C-alpha cells in the first residue's frame, strides 16, 4: 500500500493556518438580521406572563417570537416546543426570540422582555426522577407523537426503557462465589466545541429555505424541518462549511429551527443566530449525565458469571437524542467482557437539567466509568491483578454480545492483544504504586472499552467523483469536516485504489444538501466506514468507465487494461496507454470525431443486516462491528491536599488498519484529553433551583496547554473485513476508558473507592471524610 497509512497532510491545511477557513459565523452580509434568544433563568417554572411591549419598540427590532405554539419537535418523541410556552423545564430553555438589525440591538431588546414565572419543584437527578412521588417533567407524556420503538411510560418521568435479558440469572448467581455491587453517578457536562453553534436561515420568494449551520447533520436538519413544519423537503437546502469542533454536540437539531422560525417571521429575510458561550452551554444540548447501579457475580478465578445493571440516563428536560443514547448504553452495557447471564435495564429519565446531545463515545465513556470501577472492586476483592482480571474476561470471537450478536474474527477487535500491549507500554510490571516521598505517590490505573455504532439500520452514504480536464478528480461526499480529517483520508483511499497521486484528488470540503450526496450524519466514528465504502464503489464505477473508453481507443479488451498514475495502459506493455486527461471528457480522434463523454462516478453504501432490538430481551444487531481498546493513566497524587497531576496516559486501540498515522494519533490523543477533562474536572454545578452555576469557560475549564499528560498511544491491527482496507473507527475510542482509568488510579492513590465524577480534590477529600 502506497498512500494508506501515510501521514498525508490535511487537504485544508493552508486554509486553516492562514485564517481563510470559513465557519458558519464567518459568513456575513449587510442584509443579514440578528436573532437573540431569551432563555429561562430557572430549572422548572410555570410561565405566567411574557411582556414584550417595551422590547418591540426598541430601535432596530423587526420581530419578536414568544408565547406562540409551534409544532413540537424531538427526534424520537416530539416533546419539545421550539420556544417554551406553558412552562420552562430547564435553565437555559429558549422562551423568546428577538430579530433585529444588529446583534447589539437584538440583545438590548431581548433584555427588555419581561417574563413572570412561578417556580415549580425541580427534578435534580435521574434517581429522583425515578421515584414514585417525583414531580412530573412532562404531564402529557402519553399524548406526544413518538417513534414506534420508543417506550415512554405516561404518568412517570420515564421517556424510554430498554431491556436486555440474556441467559439465566439464577444459574449465574449460583455459579458465583463473590459478588460486588456499587452505585456510580455524575451530572451532565458540556462538549465545549471552540466554535459555538451558529445558524443562518433565509426563505426565498419561491419558498426555498436556505440554511447554513455549524452542524454534523445537515441532512438531518433538512429532514427534520420538513417533518416538523410540513415543508417540502426538496425546497430545503442546508449548507455546512467548516465546523469548529463538534464532538456529537452538533448532531442535534435546535438552533436551525429557531433561525428558520425567525426568518419566517420577517418575511424570509436572512437571520443569523450565534450562540454566546453561555447560551451554547446552557441552551444548546449538553453531555449526558448518568446514575448507574452495577452488580457482578464471579467465580474464584474472577470469571464473571452474572451481571445486573441499571442505568438511569439523565435525559434532562427533553428526550431528543437521549432515547438513542439510552439504547446505545444498553447494547454495550457490560463493557468489553463476556457475561452470559445478564439483566440490564436502561432508562431514559426526564429531569430538569439541560437536555443532552450525543457526546463523543455515545454513552460508552459514561457506562465505562461504572463498569471499570466495578472491575477494579472485583479485582480487589478477589486479590487478582486488575489487568489480569480484564484479560480473563475479555470478550472475543465466539462469544455473544448483550444483544446476542455472535462475534467473529472480523466484527470484534482483539482486546487481549490490546491488554498485552498496554502492559508493556505503561510498564505495568514495575508495579501500580510508586512512593515518591511522604507526600507524593505515583499510581497507575487501567481500564478497557468497546463500542459499536448504533446507527439507524437504513443510514445512507453516497459519493460522487467528477473529473477536471487535466485528469484530476473531484471528490464529493456528505461527510462534514468537523476536524477529524476524514475528507483527507477519503482522498487517500481513492488515491490508493486508483494508484494515483493524492495531490491530484481535490476534495470538496463544504457540504450542501442539494449538490452533495447524502451522508447520514458525521457521527459515531462511521465516516470512513460508510463514506469509504461508497467511495470504493464510486472508484469502481470510474475505473470501469475509464477502461471502457480506453479499450476502444487502444483496441484491447478491457480485462487487459491496468490503471495507475492517472493512466490506463496495457498490462503487458505499460507504454501503450492513455492519460486520464485524454479520456475523462471523451476521446477525440485526430479528425475531430469524439466518443465517450464526461466520466462521473457514483457510489453508495447502506449498512447491512442491522435490526431493531427485541422489546423484551433486547436481542438484535445494533451495529456493524466492535472496536476495543485498553487504557492506562498515571497520576502523581498529593496525599496532603488531594490534588494530583496527570503524568502519563496510554491508549491501545485495535484500529484494524491505520489509514493516516498522524491523523489517527491526533484523534486518539485529542479524545484522551477530552476524556481526562470530563473525568477530572468538567461538570455542571447546579443550585436548588436547577440553575447551572458555571456556564463560562472560566468556571467550566477544559484542559489548557500544559495540563495534559504525556500521551502513549499504540495500535493493534485486527482488520474489519467489511471496512475499507480493514480500518475500524477511531474518532471516539481514546476517550472511552479515561474516566475509568483515572478513577481507578485515584481510588488506589487515595485509598478510598471513588464513585462520582468529576474527580476533583474536593470529592476525594469528602469521600475520605465520609469514610473516616
Amino acid at each position, binding site marked *: 500500500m502506497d498512500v494508506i497509512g501515510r501521514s498525508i497532510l490535511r487537504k485544508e491545511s493552508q486554509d486553516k493556518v492562514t*485564517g481563510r477557513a470559513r465557519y458558519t459565523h464567518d459568513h456575513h452580509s449587510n442584509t443579514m438580521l440578528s436573532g437573540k434568544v431569551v432563555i429561562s433563568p430557572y430549572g422548572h417554572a410555570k410561565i405566567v406572563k411574557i411582556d414584550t411591549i417595551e422590547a418591540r419598540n426598541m430601535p432596530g427590532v423587526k420581530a419578536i417570537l414568544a408565547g406562540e405554539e409551534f409544532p413540537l419537535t424531538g427526534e424520537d418523541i416530539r416533546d419539545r416546543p421550539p420556544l417554551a410556552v406553558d412552562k420552562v423545564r430547564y435553565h437555559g430553555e429558549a422562551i423568546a426570540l428577538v430579530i433585529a438589525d444588529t446583534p447589539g440591538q437584538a440583545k438590548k431588546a431581548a433584555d427588555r422582555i419581561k417574563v413572570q414565572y412561578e417556580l415549580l419543584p425541580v427534578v435534580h437527578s435521574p434517581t429522583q426522577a425515578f421515584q414514585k412521588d417525583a414531580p412530573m417533567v412532562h404531564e402529557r407524556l402519553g399524548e406526544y407523537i413518538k417513534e414506534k420503538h420508543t417506550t415512554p411510560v405516561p404518568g412517570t418521568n420515564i421517556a424510554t426503557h430498554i431491556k436486555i435479558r440474556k441467559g439465566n440469572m439464577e444459574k449465574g448467581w449460583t455459579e458465583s462465589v463473590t459478588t460486588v455491587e456499587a452505585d456510580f453517578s455524575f451530572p451532565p457536562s458540556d462538549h465545549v466545541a471552540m466554535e459555538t453553534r451558529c445558524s443562518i436561515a433565509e426563505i426565498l420568494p419561491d419558498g426555498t429555505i436556505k440554511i447554513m449551520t455549524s452542524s454534523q447533520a445537515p441532512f438531518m436538519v433538512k429532514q427534520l424541518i420538513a417533518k416538523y413544519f410540513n415543508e417540502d423537503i426538496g425546497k430545503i437546502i442546508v449548507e455546512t462549511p467548516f465546523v469548529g469542533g463538534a464532538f456529537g454536540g452538533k448532531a442535534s437539531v435546535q438552533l436551525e429551527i429557531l433561525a428558520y422560525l425567525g426568518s419566517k417571521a420577517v418575511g424570509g429575510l436572512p437571520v443569523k443566530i450565534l450562540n454566546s458561550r453561555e447560551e451554547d452551554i446552557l441552551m444548546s444540548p449538553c453531555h449526558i449525565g448518568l446514575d448507574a447501579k452495577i452488580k457482578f457475580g464471579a467465580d474464584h478465578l474472577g470469571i464473571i458469571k452474572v451481571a445486573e445493571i441499571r442505568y438511569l440516563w439523565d435525559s434532562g428536560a427533553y428526550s431528543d437524542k437521549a432515547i438513542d443514547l439510552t439504547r446505545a448504553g444498553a447494547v454495550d452495557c457490560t463493557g468489553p467482557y463476556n457475561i452470559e447471564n445478564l439483566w440490564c435495564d436502561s432508562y431514559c429519565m426526564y429531569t430538569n437539567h439541560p437536555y443532552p446531545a450525543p457526546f463523543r463515545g455515545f454513552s460508552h465513556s459514561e457506562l465505562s466509568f461504572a463498569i471499570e470501577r466495578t472491575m477494579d472492586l472485583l479485582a480487589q476483592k478477589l486479590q487478582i491483578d486488575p489487568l489480569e482480571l480484564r484479560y480473563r474476561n475479555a470478550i472475543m470471537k465466539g462469544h455473544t454480545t448483550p444483544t446476542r450478536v455472535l462475534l467473529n474474527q472480523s466484527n470484534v477487535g482483539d482486546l487481549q492483544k490490546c491488554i498485552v500491549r498496554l502492559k508493556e507500554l505503561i510498564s505495568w510490571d514495575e508495579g501500580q504504586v510508586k512512593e515518591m516521598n511522604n507526600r507524593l505517590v505515583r499510581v497507575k490505573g487501567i481500564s478497557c472499552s468497546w463500542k459499536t455504532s448504533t446507527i439507524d439500520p437504513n443510514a445512507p452514504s453516497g459519493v460522487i467523483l467528477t473529473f477536471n480536464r487535466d485528469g484530476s478528480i473531484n471528490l464529493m461526499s456528505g461527510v462534514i469536516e468537523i476536524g477529524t480529517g476524514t475528507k483527507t483520508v477519503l482522498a487517500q483511499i481513492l488515491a490508493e485504489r486508483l494508484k494515483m497521486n493524492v495531490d491530484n484528488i481535490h476534495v470538496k470540503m463544504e457540504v450542501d444538501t442539494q449538490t452533495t450526496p447524502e451522508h447520514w450524519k458525521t457521527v459515531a466514528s462511521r465516516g470512513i466506514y460508510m463514506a469509504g465504502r461508497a467511495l470504493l464503489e464510486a472508484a469502481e464505477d470510474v475505473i470501469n468507465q475509464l477502461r471502457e473508453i480506453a479499450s476502444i481507443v487502444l483496441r484491447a479488451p478491457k480485462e487487459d487494461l491496468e490503471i495507475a498514475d492517472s493512466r490506463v495502459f496495457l498490462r503487458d506493455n505499460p507504454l501503450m496507454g492513455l492519460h486520464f486527461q485524454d479520456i475523462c471528457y471523451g476521446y477525440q480522434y485526430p479528425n475531430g470525431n469524439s466518443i465517450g463523454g464526461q466520466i462521473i462516478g457514483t457510489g453508495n453504501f447502506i449498512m447491512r443486516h442491522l435490526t431493531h432490538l427485541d422489546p423484551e430481551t433486547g436481542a438484535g444487531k445494533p451495529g456493524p462491528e466492535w472496536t476495543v481498546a485498553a487504557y492506562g493513566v498515571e497520576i502523581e497524587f498529593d496525599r496532603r491536599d488531594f490534588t494530583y497531576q496527570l503524568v502519563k496516559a496510554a491508549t491501545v486501540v485495535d484500529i484494524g488498519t491505520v489509514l493516516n498515522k498522524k491523523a489517527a494519533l491526533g484523534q486518539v490523543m485529542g479524545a484522551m484529553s477530552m476524556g481526562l477533562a470530563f473525568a477530572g474536572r468538567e461538570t455542571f454545578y447546579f443550585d436548588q433551583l436547577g440553575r447551572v452555576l458555571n456556564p463560562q469557560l472560566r468556571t467550566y475549564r477544559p484542559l489548557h496547554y500544559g495540563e495534559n499528560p504525556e500521551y502513549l498511544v499504540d495500535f493493534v491491527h485486527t482488520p474489519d473485513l467489511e471496512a475499507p482496507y480493514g480500518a475500524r473507527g477511531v474518532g471516539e475510542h481514546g476517550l472511552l476508558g479515561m474516566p475509568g482509568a483515572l478513577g481507578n488510579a485515584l481510588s488506589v492513590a487515595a485509598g478510598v473507592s471513588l464513585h462520582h465524577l468529576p474527580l476533583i480534590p474536593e470529592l476525594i477529600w469528602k469521600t475520605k471524610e465520609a469514610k473516616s
Partner: protein
Amino acid sequence: MKSQIIELYVNGDLRTVTVRSADTLLYAIRGKLGLTGAKPGCLNGDCGACTVNVDDWPMKSCLMLAVEAIGKNITTIEGLKKTPIQQAFVDNFAFQCGYCTPGFIMNCHSLIHQHPDADDKTIKEWLGSNICRCTGYAEIEKAVKTVLENQ
C-alpha cells in the same frame, strides 16, 4: 450610542472604520474589515480564539475596544505570510477543526519573537491562555518547539 470614524493600522495598512465606542477590536476587525481569522469563542478572555498581535504582543481582541487600538500596530492571522510557525502547525498536525488555530498561531508567533529561547515554563505560561478542544496539545507543543529550535 454614537458611532465614530477611526483609523486602524492593520496588517500594514491604514484602514478607516466606523465603530461605536463599545465595539471590541474583535468585532471591528471581523465585522467591519472582514478579517474573520480571529474567532469568537467566549468573548470573555477565557479561550484565546480571538488572539491578534498588538505592537507584537498577543492580545485577546475580545478584551480590547476598537478605539483603544488607534495608533497601534495590529497583526491578525491574515497578516502572517508563510511564517515558520504556520508551516510547523501544518507539518505537525497541530490542528484539527482549526477554530482555535489562528489564535494559537498568533500567540506562538509573538512568543517566538519575544522569547526566542523560551523554556517549557515560559511556553506553558504563554500558551496556557488558549484552549484547543480537539488536539491533546502534544502536536502544538511540537510545532512551537520545532520553530524555537530551528532558529
